[in-house]
């Protein structure tokens, strides 16, 4: 049972980080209907920015986190301007390719600047772990869980209860109709990218600190998992992304403990497929009602 609870804690920790990244996928998908394959790499750059701020500029953790989120948000806007806006009218697959191009570019850029090796992220978030029986809950885990939940709740409120949020959802349905409402669609899209990228930077830094490892291809697996989580929860749905992330984290960690750690990811994907077959729009995805 100790193993079960320890893995539950571990699963919730990673899960909340998946969820945070998944939100970025979901928001961009919601609005542009493209899977932003560069999202994971934006996360990676954000993490490196955080690392540079801590190591070279000697900022404390929280200011570094916030500043990195801000810089990454700007970078998200820039990426959207350069790589997505020009192909917005084209086939969705074209935008997907553009995203892939950005992804490849960012990874190799990071490799040139910071090398291919793994860097430690030496942040001292000290404090003794909470020990319940044999279960350890690290300070970092509490941090990761706390920060992600806070950001998620904030985002949920923003999207559902503000005028900008409704405008965002309107834009996600149809850009031209949104324009006719007087919505500045370009701004809305920029804001979406900014928020998604900032959340990714936050998640990336927490991941970097949690595993004490920052490296250029870190966005790949984080991105893949988060994307899976977003679909699991119902892509386009914000609560879905949270649920999907947490669920994925817990399931794969319990799966790794009780089945085989080698098949850990396979378990996650098999579950995803089964859930989608039962509920084709993910756990919380609203079916886009299409009347004929």
């Amino acid at each position, binding site marked *: 049972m100790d193993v079960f609870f320890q893995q539950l804690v571990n699963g919730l920790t990673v899960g909340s980080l998946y969820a945070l990244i998944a939100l970025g996928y979901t928001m961009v998908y919601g609005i542009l209907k493209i899977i932003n394959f560069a999202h994971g790499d934006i996360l990676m750059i954000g993490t490196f920015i955080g690392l540079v701020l801590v190591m070279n500029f000697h900022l404390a953790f929280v200011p570094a986190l916030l500043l990195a989120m801000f810089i990454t948000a700007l970078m998200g806007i820039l990426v959207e301007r350069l790589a997505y806006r020009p192909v917005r009218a084209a086939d969705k697959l074209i935008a997907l390719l553009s995203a892939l191009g950005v992804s490849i570019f960012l990874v190799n850029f990071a490799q040139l600047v910071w090398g291919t090796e*793994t860097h430690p992220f030496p942040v001292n978030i000290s404090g003794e772990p909470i020990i319940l029986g044999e279960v350890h809950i690290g300070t970092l885990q509490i941090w990761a869980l706390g920060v992600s939940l806070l950001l998620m709740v904030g985002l949920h409120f923003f999207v559902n209860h503000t005028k900008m949020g409704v405008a965002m959802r309107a834009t996600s349905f149809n850009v031209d109709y949104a324009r006719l409402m007087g919505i500045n669609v370009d701004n809305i899209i920029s804001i979406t990218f900014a928020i998604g990228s900032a959340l990714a930077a936050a998640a990336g830094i927490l991941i970097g600190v949690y*595993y004490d490892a920052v490296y250029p291809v870190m966005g790949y697996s984080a991105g893949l998992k988060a994307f899976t989580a977003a679909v699991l929860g119902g892509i386009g749905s914000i609560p879905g992304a949270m649920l999907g992330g947490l669920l994925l984290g817990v399931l794969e960690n319990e799966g790794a403990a009780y089945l085989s750690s080698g098949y850990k990811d396979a378990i996650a994907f098999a579950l995803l497929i089964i859930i989608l077959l039962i509920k084709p729009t993910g756990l919380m995805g609203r079916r886009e009602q299409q009347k004929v």
Partner: protein
Amino acid sequence: GGDEKNSTENKSASDAGKEIRVGVAGPFTGAIAETGTTIKNAVLLAEEQINQAGGINGKQVKLDLQDDKADPKEAAAVANKFASDKSILAVVGHYTSSTTLAGAPIYNRVGLPHIGIGCTSPAITSAGPYTYRVLTSDAYDGEYVANWMIEEGFKNIAVAYENDDYGKGLADVFKAKIESLNGKVVAMEPYNLGETKDFSAILTKFKAAKPDSLFIAGQYNEAAMLLKQGKGIGFKLPVFGSNGLYSDALIKLGGADVEGLKCVGSFHQSAPSQEAKDFIAAYKAKYNQEPDIWAAYAYDAANILFAAIKNGGEDREKINEYLTTLKDFKGATGVTTFDENGDCMKEPLKLVIQNGKFELYIK
């Protein structure tokens, strides 16, 4: 990719006779590019030294560096490139077992001798008559560490291994030996090189199995992360490792959490031999840093090939004939002899991390 000044892109037929060309295949980019860099440094040093000494038979040596990214598919492509370039006489590489196994059939098909520098899988023993390596097989190392741990009095051992030729081969041999010595492997968990970052599941399982010590059969990156994450959930044990852990990067990444770790290797800064001392001095002079074990292996591999070209002849077949009979080659990593399978026979060193440095282990 190949370093521009060293790889010769345009070799016309007339050049071919004026210089000696040797291929080097290593992980110059990718997950273990740090190792790739030291390999590159070492072979370039060997190249510089031999050319300053007048080259081979009066001809300058030109290395052709190709990146296999530690990826077997890339390795096959690189092997194909070398195999089809008739002016390449021999190859240093590859580094990992998987890449060596991917390249070996291609080299053996065209009769191109190559010397592996990090590949310790037992499978390489039978890879082919043109395949050699400058380090011992895991079958040998695994048993060696198993003996060592039993000698130190450990009985219930957890094993974390890299899920590939290297780690798995090592872990299997290790487990068999431990059991034959009446020890017990209480848990054995794989992880993937360059992919696994979250060791919490593995650690939680280890913790539940209550071992008295841990053996890591893998590379330094993962070992550092494993131990650091272990601290977070209150898992701290005496740790032993394979030669994959023997890199300063382990200490850089792991910091205090790898203090006291013990592992094997066949090269150390304070090694007694003159060859080792000379190599360390030259490497430091050129790169202003300490060479690691892979640099030493790569350096030896390059020099063995230079010797083979000089003594055997400028011909793939003749080089191979020379290598099959290589005996007592004195290099930075000790004395190398190839057996009939192209396997290397040499005694490893016992090492321990003390005060943030690898030291020779003295009981």
